[in-house]
């Protein structure tokens, strides 16, 4: 039952979820210039990170319960920091050695598998509206495994909207798209940085 509920919520609000993840994932996929299969793999890494973020929240939701859920919502500072970390990763990726082949290759830990997972994890920790709904629902459950099952189902439901982004691989021969993707990741990072700073200021 919890699984079905989570799945339904994910399916119902997945388009909004995709709109929230798109700004992070789309520039990254374009900049990689991979084919559809490579993109699917990258999206899977991204989603694995996102699932980890969700499950972390599932644990929090279980531990916090309904009352604390409200207080976490208002805990803007935490999300401010998350935004800033995400911004840092994207700015680094986007602008580091603009013109070089692959900025992240040079920074060992940020290799092509870990980086999308890190992006996914940080995106998973963002408070987008459907996610808040899921969080509130999971917080009511009171049992850890139910809360985790609910979030996992929610993740599956929303993923239906994210996987089709692999189609961007069709444009892989257009070299310009790689530059555009890289730079867009950097600009997006600056945008998240504003959001992070504003969140911190409003904390």
């Amino acid at each position, binding site marked *: 039952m919890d699984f079905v509920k989570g799945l339904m919520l994910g399916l119902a609000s997945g388009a909004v979820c995709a709109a929230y993840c*798109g700004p992070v994932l789309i520039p990254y996929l374009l900049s990689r210039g991979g084919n559809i299969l490579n993109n699917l793999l990258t999206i899977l890494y991204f989603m694995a990170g996102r699932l980890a973020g969700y499950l972390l929240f599932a644990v929090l939701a279980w531990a916090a319960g309904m009352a604390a859920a409200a207080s976490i919502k208002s805990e803007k500072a935490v999300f401010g920091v998350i935004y800033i970390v995400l911004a840092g990763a994207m700015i680094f990726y986007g602008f580091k050695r603009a013109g070089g082949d692959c900025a992240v290759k040079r920074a060992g830990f940020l290799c092509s598998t870990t980086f999308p997972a890190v992006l996914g994890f940080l995106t998973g920790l963002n408070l987008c509206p459907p996610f808040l709904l899921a969080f509130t629902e999971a917080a009511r459950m009171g049992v850890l495994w139910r809360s985790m099952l609910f979030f996992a189902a929610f993740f599956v439901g929303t993923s239906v909207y994210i996987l089709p982004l692999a189609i961007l691989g069709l444009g892989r021969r257009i070299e*310009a798209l790689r530059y555009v993707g890289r730079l867009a990741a950097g*600009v997006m990072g600056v945008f998240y940085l504003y959001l992070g700073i504003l969140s911190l*200021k409003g904390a």
Partner: protein
Amino acid sequence: MADNNRVDQKRRLGTSAVKAILLTLPILLLTGLMVTGGQPIPKEAIRLIPLAVTYLFINSIFFLLIYSGRISRYRTILFVTYAACFILTFTTNLIETRGSMILTQENMVKGETPFCPMVIPMVIIPAALTKTIIFPGSMASIGSILVAWLGVTIALGRGWCSWGCFFGGMDEGFSKIARQPVIRNINRKWTYLSFAVLLVIVLTSAATLSPTYCEWLCPFKAVTEFEEITSAKVVVQTVIFFSLFTGLVVVMPILTKRRTQCGLFCPMGAFQSLTNKLNVFDVRVDTNKCTQCNLCVKSCPVFALDEESVRKGRARVTCSKCGKCIEVCPRGAISFHIKGTDVGGNGRTAQLMFIYPAFLLLAIMGSGMISGAIYRVLLLITTGSILK
């Protein structure tokens, strides 16, 4: 070199005075209708003088452009004048109708935000997903912007950026100040930045259901209207607007002698490049005549030419059809061209076919702003106040 340029250019478009007068006649007629707006000619001098001066100015520019064949030089004069007059006319009108340049929440709720084509790429996805328009204003006003945009795009494509945009003349004006550029080389990768900005604003507008370019990135907020400062967020936004304006519209154009806002940042320019396919004109290099001297590459204000594109014989999609390269090429190898026809075969006809709609757009966009600005100056001289 300058003389060489003129002689070769004359071969392409310049003509005799009589022919130039004849070719100016259609513009004389159409701008006559445009300047008066089809209304009877006003009797008061303060209304009549601005219209007459604007009419004479626009038509003299067209005549000189045709007579000399120096498309870019005379376009620039009109385009920069229009941009400068736009600031004066727009802001004084704003202050008269709304009381100040400040945009309040109430103005936004009432949909009192003026026309801006930049809205188009931002509203498409949210409109498709939610059936709502994420910009203050009615469906009808957005609809009319869309129709106007489609018309301009079909007629000129990215030519909008050199013949229509009310902001383009600002960085073009500043790019003309220095005699020599201080910064000469800009990494080609940065010429993709405007597409990246476009991608970011489309995605973030879809995610946040708000026009993120208007809220966060528009440099021209600095000289048109800006949001009332009511929070730290608006302070940050205002600092960004002023920094972008100073950096991209003033300082960088002076240092590089290029239109850095239009060529490197403006997402509307990128959007026009993507939709440029709808338009029949492009700029082509006759590779048989070209000696690869790269003068055109160095002079293109929006970075639309590089060695590779010259070798391939065509400007990149970011070409704003300003005519500068046509003017500087000592071999007369570059011309406006109608897609699907021979390169170099129809140079003169293609140029004329392009110049008429392009110039008319500039005249339509510019005439109201120029006469409006002259009117404000006369008002100031005669009454001591720039406002009615």
